[in-house]
């Protein structure tokens, strides 16, 4: 055993021989001469038996989820904002339509619209085109604004990814 100890301190022992040393020093009888090394190998044996408490994984995963949720919240926020912006855009468009359609109706009672009624076919066509253009320009404005906002959101989103 003494020779094996010397071999150990020379850094020449195999893993099996090191296991033999640990077994020797944790057993009952140890040579007086070698007793000084007993704490070393006892320490190794003791440390080898150490492990984390059984609920470590559970506690860790909870912590990871908590820190993950914080990150996800930050990442989700622009998406929610986009949704809000989209709903707002729809509402704005709807309000424009309602205003355009409601306003003349309110005046209908007092104004005799038949006087302004277009009878000429060509004129009617031109007026229709004009009206459609107006609607189209409003829609374009809305979608342009929306795409600008999406662009901005994407830029902001990059910082959260």
């Amino acid at each position, binding site marked *: 055993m003494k020779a094996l100890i010397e071999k150990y301190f020379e850094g020449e022992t195999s893993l099996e021989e090191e296991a033999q040393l640990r077994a020797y020093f944790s057993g009952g009888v140890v040579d007086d001469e070698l007793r000084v090394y007993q704490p070393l190998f*006892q320490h190794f044996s003791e440390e080898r038996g150490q492990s984390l408490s059984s609920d470590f994984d559970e506690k860790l995963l909870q912590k990871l989820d908590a820190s993950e949720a914080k990150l996800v919240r930050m990442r989700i926020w622009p998406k929610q904002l986009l949704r809000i912006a989209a709903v707002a855009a729809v509402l704005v468009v709807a309000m424009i339509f309602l205003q355009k359609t409601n306003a003349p109706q309110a005046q209908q009672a007092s104004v005799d619209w038949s006087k302004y009624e277009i009878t000429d076919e060509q004129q009617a066509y031109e007026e229709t085109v004009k009206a459609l253009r107006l609607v189209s320009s409003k829609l374009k404005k809305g979608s342009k604004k929306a795409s600008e906002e999406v662009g901005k959101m994407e830029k902001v989103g990059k910082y959260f990814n």
Partner: protein
Amino acid sequence: MNHHDFKTKILPIKNRLFRFALGIVGQAAEAEDVVQEVFIKLWNNRQQLDAISNVEAWCITATRNLSIDKLRSKHQRLQPMAAGFDLHDQSATPYEAVVSNDVISQVRNLMSRLPEKQRDIMQLRDIEGLSYQEISDTLDVPMDQVKVYLFRARKAVRAGLEV
């Protein structure tokens, strides 16, 4: 890295890291805190992890550094300036401050005072039971260097025991 990778690649080394931390801080509860902090740090930085070639080596280094920080702050808490603080006291390093009452913690104390690489290698060999090749891979240290460090570490510990 996702949850699955974390569970299959990182969690299996938790007890090794725990014993690493324990070897420095000396108390199981604190060592457990260290490992938890290391894993949270790793998880929060997982986007950058692909750039790290050896995650285990990263974990060991992080565990060691965090354990030393913990020991230092604990030492500062326990040793207020008024209570006989001596600037000339050369023994007042965190390691030496760990007063050992029994022989086994004396060994822990001896090991914790070894230079970083020597300590890491002795820990991986004598406590974790890794082969030289595995130690070389884990710490990114050439195998012949592993043997030299181990030889020096054991020699220093032996000298400490024989005093």
